[in-house]
């Protein structure tokens, strides 16, 4: 059943997945190219000193991309479900509603993980050859809260899309804005390191919200 659900999600999201994958590879590649070109023009030693003295990470362009990919993926996955009332049919499959919902969310989570792993892998692959451990770790650790924001944006947008009433949708939207703001409060490199366990916990908590929306949908809640 999970394979069938994954196939359904693949059909729905395949073009978005391609665009998202190309975008994150493109932006990560551009970040790497910027480091390479700046190194060619100013010397790699200059880049080391800029990172050391000014806290530059060279990955700033990635900041809001995971957030956008997470939010848009949820829209692409769940807006058609709600508009065409496909969700009602999906939930009537011979499979528990909980498993069905989380199979769909697992599809999105796996794709986000793939995107973020590719981005981190590309960054690590290049940066560790030109920067010492402390410096490439500074760049990679700085991206972690942004990737977590991508997961949270995905779960929260899913909850908003699956929610049947506008009143609660607006409430979820406001809550999402404030929660996601937490990931972008501080721009200092590695500032979020002590908060990462809490952010992971918070992201896991928000993964349960789409189920609440599905329950309300099943109960027939309306405006």
């Amino acid at each position: 059943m999970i394979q069938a659900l994954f196939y359904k999600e693949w059909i729905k999201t395949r073009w978005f997945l391609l665009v998202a994958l190309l975008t994150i590879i493109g932006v990560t590649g551009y970040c790497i190219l910027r480091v390479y070109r700046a190194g060619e023009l100013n010397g790699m030693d200059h880049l080391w000193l800029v990172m050391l003295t000014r806290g530059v990470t060279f990955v700033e362009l990635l900041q809001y991309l995971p957030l956008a990919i997470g939010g848009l993926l949820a829209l692409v996955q769940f807006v058609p479900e709600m508009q065409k009332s496909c969700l009602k049919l999906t939930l009537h499959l011979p499979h528990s509603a909980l498993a069905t919902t989380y199979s769909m969310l697992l599809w999105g989570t796996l794709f986000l993980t793939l995107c973020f792993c590719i981005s981190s892998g590309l960054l690590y692959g290049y940066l560790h050859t030109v920067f010492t451990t402390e410096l490439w770790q500074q760049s990679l650790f700085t991206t972690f809260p942004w990737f977590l924001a991508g997961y949270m944006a995905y779960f929260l947008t899913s909850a908003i899309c699956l929610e049947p009433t506008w009143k609660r949708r607006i409430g979820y939207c406001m809550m999402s804005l404030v929660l996601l703001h937490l990931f972008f409060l501080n721009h200092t490199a590695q500032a979020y390191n002590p908060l990462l366990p809490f952010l992971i916990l918070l992201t896991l908590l928000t993964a349960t919200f789409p189920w609440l929306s599905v329950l309300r949908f099943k109960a027939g809640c309306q405006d």
Partner: protein
Amino acid sequence: MKYISKLFLALTLLFLALWQLPWAYNFMTKEKPKHSFTLFSPLLKNFISNKVDEAGNLYSTDGENNYTKAETDSLLPFFHYRQLIQDGRFPDAVGTQKISPRHVQQTNFIFRSHPTDVNGPNLALYALLESKSGRVNLEMPSDLFRTTATGITFIDMKSNTINQKKSEEFTALLEKKGCQFPLSRINGNGTNRKEYDNGYLLVDKQQQLFQLKMVAGHPFVRKIEVPGSIELDAMFITEFRNRSMLAFVTDKQEQFYVITLPDYEMRKIQIPGFNAHKQQITIIGNLYAWTIHVKDALGSYYYGVDANNYQLYKQLRQTEKKKKKMWGIHFTSNLDNYMKIR
């Protein structure tokens, strides 16, 4: 699962309320800070503060004796020496000692430290400059060093490789001078925006203090005697024009010291206390006296200190009546640049 989801939603809403409501209240009720610039006058042996009132700037000592702007320039000749030169009022002598504008310029210094400088986040990589290059301007090195459990390691920035020979040479000399790795603290100004280089101060695992410099490409290490049972805390290498100081140092008991040159003596500055992790400090120093301004959430403490023997002349406390902040969850702080639950 339904109840778990509901519980998690309730917990998230509670967290948002505990974070956002106090933030909004504190943001809306924040008051404009009342600044008064205060300096210790070596002539009056008292503080002069400027406080803006309806009539304009008012300069006074302890809120009693008022002075005009021109009088204040004369009472703080080391701070306002450029104004005095322009007005043709620069004194030939203060007390019995003759002074010149050049002498004043050479001996004046300003030192600042904020808790964020100490608390981080800071990268554990350091640039050791050549301190005797023979050039007027300092140049940044081609490598950085890090400290490890067994020594210090230099990494060449262009090739991203370890300079084994240099690392061994510096580690060997440090060990020869009695330094025991791993180091517990390190401080220096890894920048070429200064007139000369004093290198780094290192504290080893036995709480011994060393100065490390690079002289003509080779290491220079000097052990600095730490009196008695002092447990060193924060250190600040100074590179002032008059070259009479190596560093300011604090200990775990919040005492404040200066390491003087050329004798490498660690001398206590007779102020009641300073915690570099929680308080910011500004020292405006001259030939005769230092004005030390220590500031924290409770207010400002001003100390007038003799520049020669570091004895306290006078102290002044300015507290601000602040509205009590609403309790709640906070993530940022004035004390560091980390995001934490506070």
